[in-house]
């Protein structure tokens, strides 16, 4: 017990605010004196948010359909008109020959083929059923799936109407005993930008803080000043705190700046508490900066840092759930996501901004990241050697 208090006292004695203040002062002077730094801090968020939010969209627009209508009946015309009439589809070409349609797909001039065979209308009237075909270019599985779903919905809508037309039945409603009505929560208009912006903001805040922190210590190694610091009685904890705080402040500022852009340009809703969001981000940054510092303690050149950080960043971003829900990933991938800081923040920022989740709702993620941060920071303090 006595030993523990001695240890604690020693720890408290090791952290002297006065010394940390001098490190902070020096770091800030260096950051703001660096000419590439300010454009980086202000330019990157604007470019990333404004361009990426527009570009990284999964919304379907101008999907090209090649029509092969061999029937040329009034019914086949109606179907083609339905496809033509939606804002998502554009007719890329019309022909009687399937070969010509295949060619259009091969040349990437069309995304799918709508094939209405000869005798389409006749079969429907005589046998009460008929067939049309869709050939979809499956290279982009996601688009292909969307085309499939959307085309089926057009055709089933169409089905209902033919039945009405052909049978002239008065009580149409009885034909659909189950009526599905949809209502989308939290993002009623299914606005893709509102979903993407928080995700891109996560990437932005993470990249800036992780890279800057990782580059910083290794830069001191490269220019040799680290050695001068290592002969001083400065403690490792003081040193790491001094290196951490500036990037923490910059990253929190980036978040605020990004939210402002989101609010002004994309009208992103901020349903939940901003305090909670910034509090969570603080904990998140402990983990991210911890990773950055750890990378810089195990590297000896900026090049190494770039490679290591880039590798992890890419894997983590793709697995984070920015585009696809993590729940639909294979089990092993979901397990790997335990060490993916992006994964936690991606969920939580959307929960707080769009759903207005409270502290209790995000407590699991918060605690996980807190543990993560403590582990990474301890690792970097432990791995940072004043003596070789």
């Amino acid at each position, binding site marked *: 017990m006595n030993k523990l208090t001695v240890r604690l006292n020693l720890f408290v004695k090791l952290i*002297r605010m*006065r*010394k940390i*203040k*001098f*490190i902070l*002062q*020096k770091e800030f*002077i*260096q950051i703001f*004196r*660096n000419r590439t730094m300010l454009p980086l801090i202000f330019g990157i968020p604007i470019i990333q948010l404004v361009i990426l939010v527009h570009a990284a969209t999964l919304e379907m627009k101008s999907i090209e359909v090649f029509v092969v209508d061999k029937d040329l009946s009034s019914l086949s015309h109606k179907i083609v008109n339905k496809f033509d009439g939606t804002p998502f589809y554009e007719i890329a070409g019309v022909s009687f020959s399937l070969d010509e349609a295949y060619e259009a797909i091969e040349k990437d001039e069309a995304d799918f083929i709508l094939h209405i065979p000869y005798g389409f209308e006749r079969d429907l009237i005589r046998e009460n059923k008929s067939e049309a075909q869709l050939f979809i270019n499956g290279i982009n599985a996601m688009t292909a799936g969307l085309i499939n779903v959307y085309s089926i919905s057009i055709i089933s809508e169409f089905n209902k109407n033919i039945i009405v037309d052909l049978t002239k039945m008065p009580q149409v409603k009885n034909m659909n005993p189950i009526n599905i009505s949809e209502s989308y929560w939290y993002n009623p208009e299914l606005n893709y930008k509102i979903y993407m912006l928080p995700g891109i903001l996560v990437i932005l805040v993470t990249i800036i803080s992780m890279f800057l922190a990782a580059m910083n210590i290794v830069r001191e190694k490269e*220019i*040799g*000043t680290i*050695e*001068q*610091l*290592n*002969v*001083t*009685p*400065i*403690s490792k904890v003081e040193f790491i705190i001094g290196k951490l705080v500036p990037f923490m402040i910059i990253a929190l500022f980036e978040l605020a700046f990004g939210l402002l852009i989101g609010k002004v340009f994309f009208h992103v809703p901020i349903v939940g508490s901003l305090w909670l969001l910034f509090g969570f981000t603080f904990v998140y940054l402990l983990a991210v900066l911890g990773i950055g510092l750890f990378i810089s303690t195990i590297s000896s050149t900026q090049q190494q840092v770039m490679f290591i950080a880039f590798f992890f960043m890419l894997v983590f971003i793709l697995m984070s759930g920015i585009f696809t829900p993590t729940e639909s990933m294979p089990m092993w991938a979901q397990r790997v996501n335990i060490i993916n800081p992006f994964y936690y923040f991606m969920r939580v920022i959307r929960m707080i901004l769009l759903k207005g989740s409270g502290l209790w709702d995000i407590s699991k993620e918060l605690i996980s990241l807190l543990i993560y941060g403590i582990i990474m920071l301890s690792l970097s303090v432990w791995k940072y050697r*004043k*003596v*070789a």
Partner: protein
Amino acid sequence: MIENDNIIEVKGLVKKFGNFIANDNLTFDVRRGEIFGFLGANGAGKTTAIRILSGLLYPTSGDVKVAGFNVYKEREKVKKNIGYMSQKFSLYEDLTVRENIRFYGGIYGMSKKYIKEKTELLLERLKMQEIQNTLIKSLPLGWKQKIAFSVAIFHNPKIVFLDEPTGGVDPITRRDFWEMIYETSHSGITVFVTTHYMDEAEYCDRVSIMDQGRIEALGKPGELKEKYASQNMNEVFIKIAR
């Protein structure tokens, strides 16, 4: 003082990097207040030894005491009492002269006020008041070295380790630099300096000459010249290193 007169005591210091023996059983003492020259050709093991003495490297074996403290066990106490100037340049190029001084003073735990007063005195002594707000990167090498030296002794250490402090500058600047070393020594700080310029050896109170990881000779420059029947330290060195 009741302590003995040796400020550095080294007994049987060995440092191996894999199979390579950088320091082979070094034993020597440095006396309080003297200018101790640590000579040797490039790669003789001088830098390794100085890095061990200043707590940057762990020795493989041996007993090393600096300022009365054990280098392995009381590293942080050793660090309070030493200054260090490496051959690799150690000031921040993107900070001004004044900012560099303030930063290093600060991390030794000095107060802002004290740093400020001391900086004024220092700048006056170096005649550098006019360039105090100039970035280090735009200063000539000789000036940078003087500032680096001043920063290394800013916190009044008992010993200062200088690792090839005069590398790459002209003889006049080197002369100036040695003036600074003398002044420092007069103020009571022990100076431990490595060099491969043999003329500089003449300025030291005592020198040791290293060759291939071993100390081959140790003594006053005059004694060594006599012992090896040489006109100057250069000859002594060539006779020892063959």
